[in-house]
């Protein structure tokens, strides 16, 4: 489970360098993210632009990461591909996250 971090001041961008976040890797994803988000940062943007498929296990893992951040930090998502976007929308979990069409590179405020 490859996750690539790009800290930008108060913003931490984490890019999932995987094709799928599914039952096969959901636990590893959560564990890796748990380590990564120990670095303090107000906002964390999870870049999912490489992820072409996410099942309910993957969705649950992303929600778990949001809860790991606690009430004072935000988890935002970026680059949802069509099938992934569909799963978030069908389960109505898209309203729970701020979703960017692309990673707002170089910006330090919400798009």
């Amino acid at each position, binding site marked *: 489970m490859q996750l690539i971090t790009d800290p930008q001041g108060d913003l931490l961008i984490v890019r999932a360098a995987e094709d*799928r976040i*599914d*039952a096969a890797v959901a636990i590893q994803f959560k564990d890796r993210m748990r380590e990564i988000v120990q670095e303090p940062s107000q906002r964390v943007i999870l870049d999912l632009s490489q992820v072409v498929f996410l*099942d*309910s*296990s993957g969705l649950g893992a992303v929600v*778990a990461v949001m809860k790991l951040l606690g009430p004072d930090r935000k988890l935002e998502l970026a680059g949802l591909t069509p099938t992934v976007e*569909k799963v978030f929308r069908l*389960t109505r979990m898209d309203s*729970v996250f701020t979703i960017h069409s692309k990673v707002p590179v170089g910006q330090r405020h919400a798009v």
Partner: protein
Amino acid sequence: MPSDTNSAQNRNVGKGLALLDISIASDFLAVRGALRQVVTVLQNRSAPEDMIDLVQIVLAEALNNVVEHAYCDCSGTIRLSLTCIENGILCRIEDCGHPMPEGRIPECQLPQEREGIELPEGGFGWYLIRSLSREVSYTRMRFCNALSIILDCTQSTKSTRIAS
């Protein structure tokens, strides 16, 4: 809304074009492999993206359930078959693991609505299966489970080769 009847199994599918009939091991990586084969078969038949998405999303959930629950403390094989039927695809998943609790498909509400939790981490699977399917039915046959799922062809599929 899909109905919880046995009509999916009683339907005469002998006439349908068989798209896929495979057996896989009861682990999540094998499920990935099965889904890859499903996508390939559908692409070869020129199914549009939204139909491929539909089939992949539903089968991912149904197959993962078998791995996680039917084979929770044992292992075995899972048989997956896909057949073209009129305006749809019939998916059949068979395994010889534990039966479904109470012998039937679980509650299928969204976990947010069922439990009132704002940020659920699980419980989405059956909701996805039920809400995206025309029909879902489950049968326990002595030592094996059979789950049948009928998916409607999406609007964009109807004018393609895959709609028989």
